[in-house]
């Protein structure tokens, strides 16, 4: 297994470096323009399994190579580098644009906004390439959005693995996310005898 580091992998466990995988809030990973709903989650796995496609992979819709992946973290992290394993025959993404701490980005936003950093990708079928980030800009990342605008000429874009390297802090950016607000009193939380049993319930 070739490695970017100047040592052989038998001595040093590379997987430990790619430990940010443990801090990704995988259930909340969302991708836009994916052909199979929910397949974005399969792209985040331990380093050793990066070439293993048995869990599925992320593919965009036919004829549309754009992909947008939203990655929330369980705590704030510092991202040092990103590795992307694409598909063969021109289905690998050719460019990557990253946005930090922005929720609800869609394609029109992504195309118009200035990304925090942008990379030209090469075909990385073996998962040996990684792309360094401008570390000063990637401190305190609560969520990361990756936009892949095009690929190497294939009909659709395939991504088998996304790896993130960096450090996790113990901070949480968005503490209030765990609180449940009650905008409107929910009758089912305050069951009275007359309201059980269905029918039209009015909340004034």
């Amino acid at each position: 297994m070739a490695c970017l580091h100047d040592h052989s992998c038998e001595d040093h466990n590379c997987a430990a470096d790619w430990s940010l995988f443990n801090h990704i809030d995988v259930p909340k990973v969302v991708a836009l323009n994916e052909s199979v709903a929910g397949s974005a989650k399969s792209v985040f796995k331990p380093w050793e399994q990066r070439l293993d496609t048995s869990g599925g992979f992320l593919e965009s819709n036919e004829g549309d190579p754009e992909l947008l992946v939203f990655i929330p973290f369980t705590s704030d992290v510092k991202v040092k580098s990103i590795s992307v394993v694409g598909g063969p025959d021109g289905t690998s993404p050719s460019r990557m644009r990253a946005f930090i701490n922005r929720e609800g980005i869609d394609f029109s936003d992504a195309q118009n906004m200035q990304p925090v950093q942008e990379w030209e990708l090469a075909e990385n079928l073996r998962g040996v390439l990684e792309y360094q980030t401008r570390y000063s800009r990637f401190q305190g990342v609560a969520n990361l959005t990756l936009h892949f605008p095009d690929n190497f000429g294939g009909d659709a874009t395939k991504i088998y693995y996304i790896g993130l390297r960096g450090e996790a802090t113990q901070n949480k950016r968005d503490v209030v996310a765990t609180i449940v607000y009650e905008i409107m009193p929910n009758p089912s939380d305050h069951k009275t005898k007359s309201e059980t049993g269905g029918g039209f319930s009015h909340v004034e």
Partner: protein
Amino acid sequence: MVLEATMICIDNSEWMRNGDYAPSRFQAQADAVNLICGAKTQSNPENTVGVMTMAGKGVRVLVTPTSDLGKILACMHGLEVGAEANLSAAIQVAQLALKHRQNKRQQQRIIAFIGSPVKYDKKVLETIGKKLKKNNVSLDIVDFGETDDEKPEKLEALVTAVNSSDSSHIVHVPPGENALSDVLISTPIFTGEEGGSGFAASAAAAAATGAAGFEFDVDPNVDPELALALRLSMEEERARQEAIAKKAAEESSGAENKDHASSSNTDSVMAEAEPASNATADDKKDQPKDDDDAHLLQQALAMSMEEGSSGAASVADAAMAEAAVDDQDLALALQMSVQDASISSQSDMSKVFEDRSFVTSILSSLPGVDPNDPSVKDLLASLHGQGEVCISLLFFVEDCYIKILVVLCLCVFLHLLFSFMLKGFVFLLETAKLSYLLWKLNSFTRRQGYGYG
């Protein structure tokens, strides 16, 4: 319980003036919109719903996604109907409105009511659909109103293009008796993917079982005693019906059997109908009586066709049973009314009151009244007509509470007698007479120096 922001696109084009969906297509749409808003906000209080028009003055957003039902209901008023619906512009505007929703965690959904013909071709619609799918927006379509050959196919193609993992649906509603909202209640548009919130599921159940809903329209969870009482009285009534039918079958023979059974059925139907009207009068005094009676009459006739189910009678029996618990003379009066009705539908109640001994027995059953009191006898002697007997009863009843009940019973009495048979005019006359006499009572009482109990 999906957290969702929904934009509802209303078709208010010229085609919506048509009346093939009662009362008009546009009105049916408005009802459906109200129901959908209610369902969405009920299933998750943080859901938001917005409304926009596709035609009329143009594609415009009436309400941005909000969880305030009042705003949504208010904006539906005073919408003008006209012009042509612009579907692609409407969907784009809806997308934009959803994009700028306040809570980015909400899923995006568009519900479009399409009642006018679709002038776009399939390709254009498919591109629209793909764009929606790319931005993870689900689309529900209600296809109603105008039908031309290609409209269902085009809309199906659109929904297929948008659909990812079954989050988008299409419903075709043909014109017919059922209201648009009733048809929609049981569709996935209402119930959502998981198969129902409490609101939608119960509304669907109610619609599916028709008027019956729960047995006797009473939810056993809400009021178990009433449900039990209704069930018991229904069984009682059924037993009574069977006894009557059996007796009738035994008495006559051969070809006459059928006629007798049907006539006894009609008699019992009358008995059912009158207690039914009795019960409804008891329960809902302020509803228009005529409508009740017409409806009950139809119900009674339908029941006589079915020859067995006696729901109305059971309601009446239950009401009567409850009344009996409350007050003896009330029960007595009600019983009397039932018996008289079953004897003959043309019974004249004044005859009953002229029966002195009967009136005396009533009076003696009232607390605080001594029938041997000379003043009572004098009053009785000078009375004729049931209105004045009412007054005599009231006069001698000292307890205010009983007085109210007696008034109630007599009002009911008059109602069932006159509104059932003579429909309205005489009832009004009697009411006027009664109120005049009541006034007379008041002045008489005041003069005598009797305090109100």
